[in-house]
């Protein structure tokens, strides 16, 4: 019964996000959609010509492979980083309010709450909406890469394995995101900070050291253990194996296992910490 009402509230909240998004696209459609597509296409073109320049005229075939390698990194990394950043961002957008008439502070959660949508449901629906947006963006990257720039993902690409790696990688990043979301309550809540330094540090380090642009073998030996502390490293290794080399599921077992363990521990820990800390801060420390 309770879950039924949560589901209905979720549907209403999701519809609200969609309605707002549609309005933004509708109001700015002449700039919004073409700019978004152009942004992706220009980003891809930069990498496309960069790889040709790096490989040189003699490296026929290698430039295409290098471009495919990079494409998988730049298409998927926003999705992974979104999993890390979004839980804290959802909290920040819900609790950060603007000061209105008479010094009245109006956070977004009050709007949802007064409409009968619990905070948690509003946060989850916002998260799911962002996830869909990032999924579409990742799909656009891959589609434009394949159809516009002739990327070949290997003759026997293992799409199912790649999808599984991506899903587990996203869940692992989400777990990290849940752990890092606690930094909002612990450090950010009172401050006028627009960037969370903890999630920023994690995503930046993970993007560079996790192998978005290059294989981890090129890193100094002392830095590699740090790279493997990020779920990104397993995602990119597994993804490239599956799509560029057509590795079967068994060959991806190391990455799958690592990501499963990562996701399970991080999600449990993150959810537990978040629940307890939020409960303490919101109810006991009376900061609502």
């Amino acid at each position, binding site marked *: 019964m309770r879950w039924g009402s949560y589901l209905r509230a979720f549907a209403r909240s999701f519809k609200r996000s969609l309605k707002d998004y549609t309005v933004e696209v509708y109001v700015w459609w002449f700039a919004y959609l073409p700019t978004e597509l152009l942004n992706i296409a220009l980003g891809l073109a930069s990498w496309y010509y960069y790889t040709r320049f790096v490989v040189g005229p003699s490296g026929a075939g290698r430039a295409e492979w290098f471009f495919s390698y990079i494409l998988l990194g730049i298409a998927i990394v926003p999705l992974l980083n979104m999993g890390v950043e979004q839980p804290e961002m959802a909290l920040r957008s819900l609790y950060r309010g603007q000061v*209105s*008439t*008479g010094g*009245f502070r109006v956070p977004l959660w*009050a709007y949802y709450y*007064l409409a009968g949508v619990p905070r948690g449901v509003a946060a989850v629906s916002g998260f799911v909406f962002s996830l869909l947006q990032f999924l579409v963006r990742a799909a656009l990257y891959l589609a434009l890469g394949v159809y516009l720039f002739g990327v070949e993902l290997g003759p026997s690409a293992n799409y199912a394995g790649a999808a599984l790696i991506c899903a587990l990688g996203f869940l692992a990043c989400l777990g990290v995101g849940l752990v890092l979301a606690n930094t909002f309550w612990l*450090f950010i809540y009172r*401050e006028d900070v627009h960037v969370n330094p903890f999630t920023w540090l994690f995503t930046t380090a993970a993007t560079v050291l996790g192998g978005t642009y290059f294989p981890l073998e090129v890193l100094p030996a002392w830095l590699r253990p740090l790279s493997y502390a990020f779920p990104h490293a397993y995602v990119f290794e597994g993804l490239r194996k599956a799509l560029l080399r057509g590795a079967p599921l068994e060959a991806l077992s190391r990455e799958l296992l690592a990501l499963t363990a990562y996701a399970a521990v991080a999600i449990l820990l993150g959810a537990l910490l978040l629940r307890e800390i939020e409960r303490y801060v919101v109810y006991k420390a009376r900061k609502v």
Partner: protein
Amino acid sequence: MGRAEVAVAEKLVKEYESYEITGFVPMTGFGLYALFTVLGEKLGKYERRVVRALDGVSFTVREGEVVGVLGPNGSGKTTLLKILAGLTMPTRGRAEVAGLDVVKDHERLPRVITYIPGLAAISLFARPEMTVEWNLRRFADLAGLPREAVREALELVELVEDAHRRVYELSTGKLARLAIAFGLVKRSPLYLMDEPFTGVSPEVKVKLLELVKWLASEQGSSVLYATHILSEAEQVCSRVIVLHQGRVIADDTPRNLAKELELMESVDVEVRLAEEAEKLARDLAERADRALKVEVEGDVLKLTVAVRSSRDFVQYAVERVHAGGSKLLYVRVREPTLEDVYLALLSKHKAAEEKVVVAPPGVCYIFTGGVGGG
């Protein structure tokens, strides 16, 4: 009485934490500021303070009652309403709305309350670049309410003609009406209105105050109406709760409060003289507690006096004027206004706090109107 209790507050306490920077905290930008502020706190750069916004507040609101919450700025009116709306948690004490505990039943609370925070509702509920109707529908959809509710709310606040105008095109008065409309989309047993008519012109305010009365009398809803504009409270409230520094210093009808404070009524008398003005004025003034004004214009005596019992004074005045052969032209009795009550209460409490002898009964105020609703 015999009406159900819609809202109950018992010994509510609300404390806010505030921090003051007492030392240098480097501003680094880029989020690392957060780290430094944490370090600053640990190193004692921040001084923690606790501000008590509410202190043992208790009261009840019955079905169909419009109760005014009065108090100066910072007296705790908004905090009290936010607690009852579930938007902030009490530190101690208990509050129930329609049988729901504001802490334990927090999630179910929005079903039984409508919170109208005045113009703040616009920043909270509206996208200014979209139309009035679009914004109301957006809220109604989110709350799972039917579309007809939007039309009804627009009609009640007389915004039907502006339904297709963008919110940023509206005047302040219409924005205030839209803020009310957001509340009226959802009908509830308890309306919590926090200075809802700020910026509204007098003629519109009269209509909106009638609407508040209608909610109570026709819909059977209860209204807790926080304001520091006493004339508004005077028009709609059957009872007032006066807050001062987070405490309830009065909870009664304005009329009873005036009695309790021994505030006097004022009586205006106009007489066409057939005797010496000075003698008549002296006789009348002697029967009053205080003479406020004596004027003679030609053969007309105009007298204003303050009295504890207007009935006795008026009876005496009629007899005395006739006995002297003069003609009584005009008599008007004015009860103490809510403003008189409010100011007397505040001065009494301030005096008590400062351990100064309270002004003796009989202190007069310049009366400007009658106490309504009592």
